[in-house]
Protein backbone atom coordinates (compact mmCIF):
# COMPACT_ATOMS: atom_id res chain seq x y z
CA UNK A 1 0.00 0.00 0.00
CA UNK A 2 1.36 3.37 -1.07
CA UNK A 3 1.63 6.30 1.34
CA UNK A 4 2.76 9.83 0.79
CA UNK A 5 4.18 11.05 4.08
CA UNK A 6 5.08 14.50 5.29
CA UNK A 7 8.44 13.94 6.90
CA UNK A 8 11.45 11.70 6.60
CA UNK A 9 10.90 10.76 10.25
CA UNK A 10 7.47 9.39 9.46
CA UNK A 11 8.91 7.66 6.38
CA UNK A 12 11.40 5.59 8.38
CA UNK A 13 9.25 5.06 11.48
CA UNK A 14 8.81 1.38 12.12
CA UNK A 15 12.26 0.27 11.00
CA UNK A 16 13.15 -2.26 13.66
CA UNK A 17 16.40 -3.20 15.36
CA UNK A 18 18.09 -6.02 13.50
CA UNK A 19 16.56 -5.11 10.14
CA UNK A 20 18.30 -5.57 6.83
CA UNK A 21 18.26 -2.17 5.16
CA UNK A 22 19.21 -1.53 1.55
CA UNK A 23 20.46 1.98 0.95
CA UNK A 24 20.63 3.30 -2.60
CA UNK A 25 23.50 5.26 -4.02
CA UNK A 26 26.90 4.77 -5.54
CA UNK A 27 29.23 6.99 -3.61
CA UNK A 28 27.18 10.09 -2.95
CA UNK A 29 25.18 9.92 -6.20
CA UNK A 30 21.71 8.71 -5.38
CA UNK A 31 22.47 8.35 -1.68
CA UNK A 32 19.30 9.27 0.27
CA UNK A 33 21.04 11.43 2.86
CA UNK A 34 17.86 12.77 4.45
CA UNK A 35 16.39 9.31 4.93
CA UNK A 36 19.65 8.07 6.41
CA UNK A 37 19.67 11.01 8.82
CA UNK A 38 16.12 10.09 9.79
CA UNK A 39 17.18 6.47 10.30
CA UNK A 40 19.89 7.78 12.60
CA UNK A 41 17.33 9.79 14.56
CA UNK A 42 14.82 6.94 14.81
CA UNK A 43 17.26 4.88 16.82
CA UNK A 44 17.12 1.52 15.03
CA UNK A 45 20.32 -0.39 15.59
CA UNK A 46 21.96 -3.76 14.97
CA UNK A 47 21.32 -3.19 11.27
CA UNK A 48 22.60 -5.10 8.27
CA UNK A 49 23.14 -2.52 5.55
CA UNK A 50 23.38 -3.28 1.83
CA UNK A 51 25.08 -0.54 -0.19
CA UNK A 52 27.80 -0.51 -2.81
CA UNK A 53 30.15 1.30 -0.45
CA UNK A 54 30.58 1.67 3.28
CA UNK A 55 30.10 5.40 3.62
CA UNK A 56 32.12 8.43 2.61
CA UNK A 57 33.34 11.31 4.76
CA UNK A 58 31.33 12.39 7.77
CA UNK A 59 27.79 12.12 6.51
CA UNK A 60 25.02 9.66 5.68
CA UNK A 61 25.91 5.99 5.91
CA UNK A 62 29.37 6.86 7.25
CA UNK A 63 27.80 8.42 10.35
CA UNK A 64 25.47 5.49 10.85
CA UNK A 65 28.54 3.27 10.90
CA UNK A 66 30.44 5.64 13.19
CA UNK A 67 27.59 5.53 15.70
CA UNK A 68 27.77 1.75 15.87
CA UNK A 69 24.33 1.18 14.43
CA UNK A 70 25.51 -1.12 11.68
CA UNK A 71 26.27 -4.70 12.66
CA UNK A 72 27.13 -5.86 9.16
CA UNK A 73 27.86 -4.31 5.75
CA UNK A 74 27.12 -6.15 2.51
CA UNK A 75 28.99 -4.20 -0.15
CA UNK A 76 31.48 -4.35 -2.99
CA UNK A 77 33.80 -1.46 -2.25
CA UNK A 78 34.18 -0.40 1.39
CA UNK A 79 37.73 0.96 1.15
CA UNK A 80 37.88 4.52 -0.07
CA UNK A 81 40.08 7.49 0.66
CA UNK A 82 37.38 8.89 2.94
CA UNK A 83 35.86 5.73 4.42
CA UNK A 84 37.59 6.35 7.75
CA UNK A 85 34.60 5.49 9.94
CA UNK A 86 34.17 2.10 8.34
CA UNK A 87 37.94 1.51 8.35
CA UNK A 88 38.14 2.14 12.07
CA UNK A 89 35.19 -0.10 12.95
CA UNK A 90 36.49 -2.84 10.67
CA UNK A 91 39.99 -2.77 12.09
CA UNK A 92 38.54 -2.82 15.60
CA UNK A 93 36.53 -5.90 14.70
CA UNK A 94 33.33 -4.01 15.44
CA UNK A 95 31.62 -4.46 12.08
CA UNK A 96 31.10 -7.53 9.97
CA UNK A 97 31.80 -7.35 6.23
CA UNK A 98 30.37 -9.48 3.44
CA UNK A 99 32.35 -8.44 0.41
CA UNK A 100 30.53 -9.12 -2.87
CA UNK A 101 31.71 -8.41 -6.42
CA UNK A 102 29.67 -5.43 -7.60
CA UNK A 103 27.91 -7.30 -10.38
CA UNK A 104 27.02 -10.13 -8.04
CA UNK A 105 25.70 -7.57 -5.59
CA UNK A 106 23.49 -6.04 -8.27
CA UNK A 107 22.37 -9.38 -9.68
CA UNK A 108 21.64 -10.85 -6.23
CA UNK A 109 19.50 -7.82 -5.38
CA UNK A 110 17.74 -8.13 -8.73
CA UNK A 111 17.21 -11.87 -8.10
CA UNK A 112 15.46 -11.12 -4.81
CA UNK A 113 13.04 -8.76 -6.50
CA UNK A 114 12.44 -11.13 -9.41
CA UNK A 115 11.79 -14.25 -7.35
CA UNK A 116 14.91 -16.10 -8.49
CA UNK A 117 16.09 -18.69 -5.95
CA UNK A 118 19.72 -18.45 -6.99
CA UNK A 119 21.90 -18.34 -10.10
CA UNK A 120 25.24 -19.36 -11.49
CA UNK A 121 27.70 -16.72 -12.64
CA UNK A 122 31.31 -16.85 -13.84
CA UNK A 123 32.17 -13.76 -11.77
CA UNK A 124 34.39 -14.66 -8.86
CA UNK A 125 35.02 -18.24 -9.95
CA UNK A 126 38.40 -19.41 -8.70
CA UNK A 127 38.82 -16.43 -6.38
CA UNK A 128 38.70 -16.11 -2.61
CA UNK A 129 35.27 -14.47 -2.87
CA UNK A 130 33.90 -17.81 -4.08
CA UNK A 131 35.48 -19.86 -1.30
CA UNK A 132 32.98 -22.22 0.27
CA UNK A 133 30.41 -21.58 -2.44
CA UNK A 134 28.91 -24.20 -4.73
CA UNK A 135 30.46 -24.21 -8.19
CA UNK A 136 29.88 -26.02 -11.44
CA UNK A 137 31.19 -25.94 -14.97
CA UNK A 138 28.57 -24.71 -17.43
CA UNK A 139 29.38 -24.59 -21.15
CA UNK A 140 33.04 -24.97 -20.29
CA UNK A 141 33.17 -22.08 -17.83
CA UNK A 142 33.54 -22.32 -14.09
CA UNK A 143 30.59 -20.70 -12.37
CA UNK A 144 29.63 -19.86 -8.79
CA UNK A 145 26.19 -20.24 -7.21
CA UNK A 146 24.94 -16.95 -5.79
CA UNK A 147 21.78 -16.41 -3.76
CA UNK A 148 19.33 -13.51 -3.64
CA UNK A 149 19.76 -10.66 -1.15
CA UNK A 150 16.39 -9.71 0.34
CA UNK A 151 15.81 -6.76 2.63
CA UNK A 152 13.24 -5.62 5.12
CA UNK A 153 13.49 -2.03 4.01
CA UNK A 154 14.99 -0.08 1.11
CA UNK A 155 15.81 3.62 1.42
CA UNK A 156 16.30 5.16 -1.99
CA UNK A 157 16.40 8.51 -3.73
CA UNK A 158 14.61 9.31 -6.98
CA UNK A 159 14.01 12.51 -8.92
CA UNK A 160 10.22 12.47 -9.26
CA UNK A 161 7.27 10.35 -8.19
CA UNK A 162 3.75 10.46 -9.56
CA UNK A 163 0.53 9.85 -7.68
CA UNK A 164 0.78 6.12 -8.34
CA UNK A 165 4.28 5.91 -6.88
CA UNK A 166 5.98 5.54 -10.24
CA UNK A 167 9.55 6.83 -10.16
CA UNK A 168 12.09 8.40 -12.47
CA UNK A 169 15.71 9.05 -11.55
CA UNK A 170 18.45 11.43 -12.64
CA UNK A 171 21.61 10.39 -14.55
CA UNK A 172 23.94 8.00 -12.71
CA UNK A 173 22.07 8.59 -9.45
CA UNK A 174 19.72 5.88 -10.73
CA UNK A 175 22.24 3.13 -9.88
CA UNK A 176 20.82 0.75 -7.24
CA UNK A 177 17.42 2.43 -6.69
CA UNK A 178 15.31 0.37 -9.10
CA UNK A 179 16.61 -3.03 -8.03
CA UNK A 180 16.56 -2.26 -4.31
CA UNK A 181 12.97 -1.00 -4.55
CA UNK A 182 11.99 -4.42 -5.89
CA UNK A 183 14.06 -6.44 -3.41
CA UNK A 184 12.78 -4.97 -0.15
CA UNK A 185 9.55 -5.77 1.66
CA UNK A 186 9.06 -2.06 2.32
CA UNK A 187 10.49 0.65 0.07
CA UNK A 188 10.86 4.25 1.18
CA UNK A 189 11.69 6.88 -1.42
CA UNK A 190 12.79 10.46 -1.12
CA UNK A 191 12.08 12.57 -4.18
CA UNK A 192 12.57 16.17 -5.25
CA UNK A 193 9.14 16.46 -6.82
CA UNK A 194 5.75 14.78 -6.71
CA UNK A 195 3.41 15.05 -9.68
CA UNK A 196 -0.12 13.77 -10.23
CA UNK A 197 -0.79 10.33 -11.71
CA UNK A 198 -0.42 10.85 -15.43
CA UNK A 199 2.29 13.47 -14.91
CA UNK A 200 5.04 11.05 -15.95
CA UNK A 201 5.15 9.46 -19.39
CA UNK A 202 4.23 5.75 -19.03
CA UNK A 203 7.01 4.91 -21.51
CA UNK A 204 9.65 6.45 -19.25
CA UNK A 205 8.81 5.05 -15.83
CA UNK A 206 11.89 3.39 -14.38
CA UNK A 207 10.39 2.02 -11.15
CA UNK A 208 6.67 1.15 -11.30
CA UNK A 209 4.72 2.15 -8.21
CA UNK A 210 4.08 -1.47 -7.28
CA UNK A 211 7.57 -1.47 -5.74
CA UNK A 212 7.05 1.64 -3.64
CA UNK A 213 5.50 1.97 -0.17
CA UNK A 214 6.34 5.41 1.23
CA UNK A 215 7.23 8.59 -0.57
CA UNK A 216 8.48 11.78 1.02
CA UNK A 217 9.38 15.00 -0.72
CA UNK A 218 12.71 16.44 0.38
CA UNK A 219 13.34 20.08 -0.41
Amino acid sequence: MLNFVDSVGEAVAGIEDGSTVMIGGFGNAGQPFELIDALMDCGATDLTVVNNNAGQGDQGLALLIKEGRVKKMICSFPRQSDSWHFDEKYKAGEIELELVPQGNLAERIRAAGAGIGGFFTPTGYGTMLAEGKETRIIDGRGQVFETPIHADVALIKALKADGKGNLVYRKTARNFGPIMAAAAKHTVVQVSEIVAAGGLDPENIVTPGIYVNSIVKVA
Partner: protein
Amino acid sequence: MSPQTTSQDLQTSDKPLGRDDLARMVAKDIAAGSFVNLGIGQPTLVSNYLLPEQNITLHTENGMLGMGPEAVGDEIDGDLINAGKIPVTELPGASYFHHADSFAIMRGGHLDICVLGAFQVSATGDLANWHTGAPDAIPAVGGAMDLATGAKDVFVMMTLLTRDGASKIVEACTYPLTGIGCVTRVYTDKAVFLTGPDGVSVRETFGCTLEELQDLVPVPLKAGPAVGL
Protein backbone atom coordinates in the same frame (compact mmCIF):
# COMPACT_ATOMS: atom_id res chain seq x y z
CA MET B 1 -18.20 -26.94 11.50
CA SER B 2 -17.19 -24.35 14.04
CA PRO B 3 -19.64 -23.90 16.92
CA GLN B 4 -20.68 -20.39 16.00
CA THR B 5 -21.47 -21.15 12.35
CA THR B 6 -24.37 -23.21 11.10
CA SER B 7 -24.82 -24.51 7.63
CA GLN B 8 -27.75 -22.14 7.20
CA ASP B 9 -25.62 -19.13 8.15
CA LEU B 10 -23.32 -19.93 5.27
CA GLN B 11 -26.01 -19.72 2.61
CA THR B 12 -25.93 -16.12 1.39
CA SER B 13 -27.99 -16.56 -1.77
CA ASP B 14 -31.02 -18.71 -2.41
CA LYS B 15 -29.82 -19.64 -5.88
CA PRO B 16 -26.54 -20.32 -7.62
CA LEU B 17 -24.58 -17.22 -8.64
CA GLY B 18 -24.26 -16.22 -12.30
CA ARG B 19 -20.89 -15.26 -13.76
CA ASP B 20 -21.50 -11.55 -13.35
CA ASP B 21 -22.66 -11.85 -9.76
CA LEU B 22 -19.60 -13.91 -9.03
CA ALA B 23 -17.34 -11.36 -10.73
CA ARG B 24 -18.97 -8.62 -8.65
CA MET B 25 -18.27 -10.61 -5.49
CA VAL B 26 -14.62 -11.15 -6.39
CA ALA B 27 -14.23 -7.46 -7.18
CA LYS B 28 -15.71 -6.54 -3.82
CA ASP B 29 -13.32 -8.91 -2.04
CA ILE B 30 -10.21 -7.24 -3.47
CA ALA B 31 -8.65 -4.93 -0.90
CA ALA B 32 -8.28 -1.26 -1.77
CA GLY B 33 -4.94 -0.37 -3.33
CA SER B 34 -4.22 -3.90 -4.54
CA PHE B 35 -2.20 -4.82 -7.61
CA VAL B 36 -4.11 -7.48 -9.49
CA ASN B 37 -3.75 -9.66 -12.57
CA LEU B 38 -6.95 -10.99 -14.11
CA GLY B 39 -6.55 -14.11 -16.22
CA ILE B 40 -8.07 -14.62 -19.64
CA GLY B 41 -11.76 -15.63 -19.79
CA GLN B 42 -14.12 -15.49 -16.81
CA PRO B 43 -11.67 -13.58 -14.55
CA THR B 44 -11.65 -10.68 -17.00
CA LEU B 45 -15.27 -9.99 -15.99
CA VAL B 46 -14.02 -8.86 -12.58
CA SER B 47 -12.68 -5.64 -14.09
CA ASN B 48 -16.24 -4.57 -14.87
CA TYR B 49 -17.03 -4.40 -11.16
CA LEU B 50 -13.95 -2.74 -9.68
CA LEU B 51 -14.88 0.64 -8.22
CA PRO B 52 -12.72 3.74 -8.76
CA GLU B 53 -12.50 4.25 -4.99
CA GLN B 54 -10.87 0.82 -4.66
CA ASN B 55 -7.86 2.23 -6.51
CA ILE B 56 -6.96 -1.19 -7.94
CA THR B 57 -4.04 -1.31 -10.39
CA LEU B 58 -4.32 -3.96 -13.08
CA HIS B 59 -1.24 -5.71 -14.41
CA THR B 60 -1.06 -7.38 -17.77
CA GLU B 61 1.86 -9.76 -18.19
CA ASN B 62 2.74 -8.57 -21.67
CA GLY B 63 4.21 -5.48 -20.07
CA MET B 64 1.98 -2.96 -18.36
CA LEU B 65 0.65 -1.74 -15.04
CA GLY B 66 -2.35 0.57 -14.99
CA MET B 67 -4.32 -1.17 -17.70
CA GLY B 68 -7.71 0.38 -18.40
CA PRO B 69 -10.91 -1.04 -19.93
CA GLU B 70 -11.09 -2.70 -23.33
CA ALA B 71 -10.53 -0.20 -26.14
CA VAL B 72 -13.43 0.72 -28.36
CA GLY B 73 -13.62 2.61 -31.64
CA ASP B 74 -10.81 5.10 -32.11
CA GLU B 75 -9.10 3.94 -28.95
CA ILE B 76 -8.06 0.67 -30.58
CA ASP B 77 -4.28 0.56 -30.99
CA GLY B 78 -2.48 -2.60 -32.07
CA ASP B 79 0.47 -1.70 -29.83
CA LEU B 80 -1.69 -1.63 -26.71
CA ILE B 81 -3.12 -5.06 -25.97
CA ASN B 82 -3.63 -7.27 -22.95
CA ALA B 83 -2.48 -10.83 -22.30
CA GLY B 84 -5.49 -12.10 -24.24
CA LYS B 85 -4.33 -9.94 -27.18
CA ILE B 86 -7.44 -7.75 -26.87
CA PRO B 87 -6.91 -3.99 -27.43
CA VAL B 88 -7.11 -2.16 -24.12
CA THR B 89 -6.59 1.36 -22.81
CA GLU B 90 -4.12 3.07 -20.50
CA LEU B 91 -5.04 4.79 -17.23
CA PRO B 92 -3.23 7.82 -15.75
CA GLY B 93 -0.17 6.54 -13.88
CA ALA B 94 0.30 3.54 -16.16
CA SER B 95 3.77 2.19 -16.94
CA TYR B 96 5.23 -0.03 -19.65
CA PHE B 97 8.11 -2.49 -19.25
CA HIS B 98 9.66 -5.40 -21.09
CA HIS B 99 8.72 -9.02 -20.59
CA ALA B 100 11.45 -9.94 -18.10
CA ASP B 101 10.59 -6.96 -15.94
CA SER B 102 6.90 -7.77 -16.24
CA PHE B 103 7.37 -11.35 -15.14
CA ALA B 104 9.70 -10.23 -12.35
CA ILE B 105 6.68 -8.41 -10.95
CA MET B 106 4.70 -11.65 -11.04
CA ARG B 107 7.44 -14.06 -10.00
CA GLY B 108 8.89 -11.81 -7.32
CA GLY B 109 5.68 -11.95 -5.31
CA HIS B 110 4.63 -8.35 -5.92
CA LEU B 111 1.09 -8.95 -7.18
CA ASP B 112 -1.43 -9.05 -4.37
CA ILE B 113 -3.93 -11.20 -6.20
CA CYS B 114 -4.29 -13.01 -9.46
CA VAL B 115 -7.64 -14.40 -10.55
CA LEU B 116 -7.50 -17.45 -12.79
CA GLY B 117 -9.84 -19.93 -14.40
CA ALA B 118 -9.31 -23.62 -13.69
CA PHE B 119 -10.06 -27.15 -14.81
CA GLN B 120 -9.48 -28.50 -11.31
CA VAL B 121 -8.38 -27.37 -7.86
CA SER B 122 -7.24 -29.90 -5.27
CA ALA B 123 -8.13 -29.92 -1.59
CA THR B 124 -4.72 -28.44 -0.77
CA GLY B 125 -4.81 -25.77 -3.44
CA ASP B 126 -3.04 -27.46 -6.33
CA LEU B 127 -4.14 -25.88 -9.59
CA ALA B 128 -4.70 -27.44 -13.01
CA ASN B 129 -5.70 -24.92 -15.63
CA TRP B 130 -3.44 -25.12 -18.66
CA HIS B 131 -3.69 -28.51 -20.33
CA THR B 132 -6.29 -31.22 -20.63
CA GLY B 133 -3.57 -33.80 -21.01
CA ALA B 134 -5.37 -35.19 -24.06
CA PRO B 135 -2.77 -36.82 -26.33
CA ASP B 136 -3.84 -34.80 -29.39
CA ALA B 137 -4.06 -31.46 -27.58
CA ILE B 138 -1.54 -28.78 -28.49
CA PRO B 139 -0.20 -27.64 -25.14
CA ALA B 140 0.03 -23.91 -24.39
CA VAL B 141 0.89 -22.50 -20.99
CA GLY B 142 1.53 -18.76 -21.31
CA GLY B 143 1.96 -17.06 -17.97
CA ALA B 144 -0.31 -19.38 -15.97
CA MET B 145 2.47 -21.08 -14.03
CA ASP B 146 4.19 -17.79 -13.22
CA LEU B 147 0.96 -16.29 -11.92
CA ALA B 148 0.02 -19.39 -9.93
CA THR B 149 3.44 -19.51 -8.32
CA GLY B 150 4.13 -15.83 -7.94
CA ALA B 151 1.04 -13.96 -6.76
CA LYS B 152 0.52 -13.52 -3.02
CA ASP B 153 -3.03 -14.85 -3.37
CA VAL B 154 -4.39 -16.96 -6.19
CA PHE B 155 -8.15 -16.81 -6.61
CA VAL B 156 -9.86 -19.22 -8.95
CA MET B 157 -13.20 -18.54 -10.67
CA MET B 158 -15.01 -21.49 -12.21
CA THR B 159 -18.24 -23.42 -12.24
CA LEU B 160 -18.16 -26.02 -9.50
CA LEU B 161 -19.19 -28.84 -11.78
CA THR B 162 -18.10 -29.91 -15.24
CA ARG B 163 -20.70 -30.31 -17.96
CA ASP B 164 -20.81 -33.97 -16.93
CA GLY B 165 -21.56 -33.05 -13.33
CA ALA B 166 -18.15 -33.91 -11.88
CA SER B 167 -16.72 -31.67 -9.18
CA LYS B 168 -13.79 -29.52 -10.24
CA ILE B 169 -12.71 -29.44 -6.62
CA VAL B 170 -10.96 -32.76 -6.27
CA GLU B 171 -8.85 -34.75 -3.85
CA ALA B 172 -5.95 -34.64 -6.29
CA CYS B 173 -5.85 -33.12 -9.76
CA THR B 174 -6.02 -35.58 -12.65
CA TYR B 175 -5.19 -32.90 -15.22
CA PRO B 176 -1.56 -31.77 -15.53
CA LEU B 177 -0.68 -29.33 -12.76
CA THR B 178 -0.08 -25.61 -13.14
CA GLY B 179 1.20 -25.12 -9.61
CA ILE B 180 1.29 -26.86 -6.26
CA GLY B 181 -0.59 -25.57 -3.21
CA CYS B 182 -0.99 -22.14 -4.72
CA VAL B 183 -4.77 -21.53 -4.73
CA THR B 184 -6.14 -19.75 -1.68
CA ARG B 185 -9.76 -19.21 -2.73
CA VAL B 186 -12.16 -20.72 -5.23
CA TYR B 187 -15.19 -18.74 -6.36
CA THR B 188 -17.84 -20.97 -7.95
CA ASP B 189 -21.49 -20.66 -8.85
CA LYS B 190 -22.43 -22.79 -5.81
CA ALA B 191 -19.99 -21.67 -3.11
CA VAL B 192 -16.81 -19.86 -2.17
CA PHE B 193 -14.10 -22.22 -0.93
CA LEU B 194 -10.92 -21.47 0.96
CA THR B 195 -8.11 -23.91 0.18
CA GLY B 196 -4.81 -24.48 1.86
CA PRO B 197 -2.60 -26.99 3.62
CA ASP B 198 -5.41 -27.85 6.06
CA GLY B 199 -7.91 -28.66 3.34
CA VAL B 200 -11.08 -26.98 2.17
CA SER B 201 -13.41 -24.76 4.08
CA VAL B 202 -16.54 -23.12 2.76
CA ARG B 203 -17.01 -19.40 3.21
CA GLU B 204 -20.52 -19.22 1.83
CA THR B 205 -22.92 -21.17 -0.31
CA PHE B 206 -25.33 -20.11 -3.06
CA GLY B 207 -28.59 -21.96 -3.48
CA CYS B 208 -27.53 -24.94 -1.40
CA THR B 209 -26.65 -25.87 2.14
CA LEU B 210 -23.23 -27.05 3.20
CA GLU B 211 -24.61 -30.59 3.38
CA GLU B 212 -25.96 -30.40 -0.16
CA LEU B 213 -22.63 -28.99 -1.30
CA GLN B 214 -20.77 -31.82 0.41
CA ASP B 215 -22.77 -34.29 -1.64
CA LEU B 216 -21.33 -32.74 -4.80
CA VAL B 217 -17.71 -32.40 -3.71
CA PRO B 218 -15.50 -35.44 -3.04
CA VAL B 219 -13.32 -33.82 -0.39
CA PRO B 220 -14.27 -33.10 3.23
CA LEU B 221 -15.68 -29.58 3.61
CA LYS B 222 -15.50 -27.54 6.78
CA ALA B 223 -17.58 -24.50 7.52
CA GLY B 224 -15.19 -21.66 7.04
CA PRO B 225 -14.61 -18.48 8.96
CA ALA B 226 -17.45 -16.03 9.13
CA VAL B 227 -18.57 -14.48 5.86
CA GLY B 228 -16.54 -11.49 4.91
CA LEU B 229 -13.05 -12.93 5.16
